[in-house]
């Protein structure tokens, strides 16, 4: 399957995010890098964590290296620069810095194995991705870290590849359920009330918590929905239709709203990465009337599955693929090790 060629027609920045640690993000990245070399697509590579190290820092298990061809662009912090076997020409010492030093934007001058790490903050990642595109990359691939998925936000990535697999759970059914929960959140309906959308836009999308009534909107004096429980509940009146949360929608936020009011309103969040409710609670809360809309959802380019877990157990490859395909509702599902 020519995955990358398809992606490059539609997207410029694609991030690879994982359902769990060891879900196979780096393997997917390597597959795409190899395809890019065959297809002559100029890539930029960065990571929200760290990639290319040979041993997992938590589990101690072996990890795949990252081999980059000449003229690929890549970010690496000053603390890891010496650890790359490839010849790296430093294009710019960026203003971004991480736990391993200043982030260097480099061009691969001599092909070889590379350790990459980029800015840890999503806003800074956007800056780096933009710069790599401006400097001539056809496409930028961002490797996620652990189970961090903030980079999937539509303002940071045009599309995501969601990596999942046995590392998530010992049960195939559970892996499918948890993965489809996140995929489901990424494809939540976009908020269609244009008048309300205009009000949110006027206050700056990241702006203020807004309560929409049947007529008009109010801005209660709440700085964050987190731990706002009682205050948020009081702010919801008989006429309230929607509550726009500029930040995170967590179980705690929902728990603060009384059952009758929960049935009456819909929560509006900026995008699906703002939602922190696990699949079991989500099901339960949906029964209690929870409704969530997003201003913009996340484009899922593909789901990838890894049947092996670092603990040593593994699933039947074909069974995992078919179970995931059956649930995926049209999203391409693949195991890049057996590209089929």
């Amino acid at each position, binding site marked *: 399957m020519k995955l990358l060629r398809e992606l490059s027609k539609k997207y410029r920045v694609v991030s690879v995010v994982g359902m769990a640690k060891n879900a196979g993000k780096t393997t997917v990245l390597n597959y795409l890098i190899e395809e890019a070399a065959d297809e002559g697509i100029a890539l930029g590579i960065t990571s929200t964590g760290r990639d290319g190290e040979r041993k997992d820092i938590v589990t101690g298990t072996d990890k795949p290296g990252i081999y980059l061809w000449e003229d690929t662009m890549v970010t690496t912090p000053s603390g890891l620069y010496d650890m790359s076997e490839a010849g790296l020409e430093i294009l710019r010492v960026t203003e971004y810095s991480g736990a391993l*030093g200043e982030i260097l934007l480099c061009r691969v001058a001599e092909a070889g194995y590379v350790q990459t790490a980029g800015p840890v903050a999503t806003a800074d990642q956007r800056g780096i991705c933009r710069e790599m595109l401006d400097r001539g990359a056809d496409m930028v691939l961002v490797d996620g870290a652990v189970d961090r998925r903030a980079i999937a936000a539509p303002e940071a990535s045009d599309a995501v590849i969601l990596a999942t697999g046995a590392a998530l759970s010992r049960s195939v059914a559970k892996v499918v359920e948890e993965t489809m929960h996140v995929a489901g959140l990424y494809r939540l309906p976009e908020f269609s009330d244009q008048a309300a959308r205009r009000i949110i836009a006027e206050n700056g999308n990241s702006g203020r918590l807004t309560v929409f009534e049947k007529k008009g909107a109010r801005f209660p004096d709440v700085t964050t929905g987190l731990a706002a429980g009682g205050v948020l509940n009081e702010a919801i009146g008989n006429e309230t239709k929607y509550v726009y949360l500029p930040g995170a929608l967590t179980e705690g936020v929902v728990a603060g709203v009384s059952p009758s009011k929960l049935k009456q309103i819909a929560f509006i969040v900026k995008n699906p990465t703002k939602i922190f409710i696990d699949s079991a609670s989500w099901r339960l809360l949906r029964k209690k009337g929870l409704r969530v809309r997003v201003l913009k959802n996340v484009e899922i380019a593909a789901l990838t599955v890894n049947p092996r877990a670092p603990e040593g157990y593994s699933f039947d490859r074909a069974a995992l693929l078919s179970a995931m395909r059956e649930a995926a509702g049209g999203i391409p599902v693949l195991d890049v090790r057996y590209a089929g």
Partner: protein
Amino acid sequence: MGANGIAVAKVDLKNIKPYGDTMNDGMMELTFTLPVPYGPEADEAAKILGRKMGLDEVSVVFSKDLGQGFTFFAMYGKCRHTVDFTAIKVAKADVEVMSREECQKYIENNIRRDVVVVGATTGTDAHTVGIDAIMNMKGFHGHYGLERYKGIEAINMGSQVSNEALVAKAIETGADAILVSQIVTQKDVHISNMTNLVEIIEAEGIRSRVVLCCGGPRISYELAQELGYDAGFGPHSYAEEVASFVLTEMVRRKLV
């Protein structure tokens, strides 16, 4: 011949070995417990294990009955293996550490307002020893904590704090820095707990305006990068290091 006229074997950095009494003797001391009853069979089991670990001339110099079918051992042995020290590359971060007085001066000169630091041990972890060592007035090992620093308002929320509560407090107080401690957790739950905090901070839109640090016995700079933190403080870290990093990072990122 060495400086005192004594013959000394030179260190071969390409093949380093443990040092006991003489260079390259490979001597190591190990202590461990086996789940077997105290007795000669237990000592023999310990020796066999030592040989399997690559030790020669293994001797059990001490063993003690721990009861309930467990035995504790102290063992000596000579290591067969060597390490090429010249080929080692590790990820490092350079932070210039200022003393408490220097930190206070730095705030006066470069920040000119109080710096708000919120800290907690998060998730299920009930151990406050780490966050207290950094934040408490009395500090640790003769290193005063952040509460004693003039110009720093240190808010220590204690242990078993939820990520939501920590972020809410940081927003409420307009915190400049968030410190998270993880000491004892099971099955690597500290990893997903720490990434969850980063994700909530991102979702709340405050990631760019806080300095985010983690600390604990299993934390390193490398892990901090992986988890999305600005710095990670491992064992043997004191308040000065944390304060120095937070203050210089605030200035570097123009958060003053």
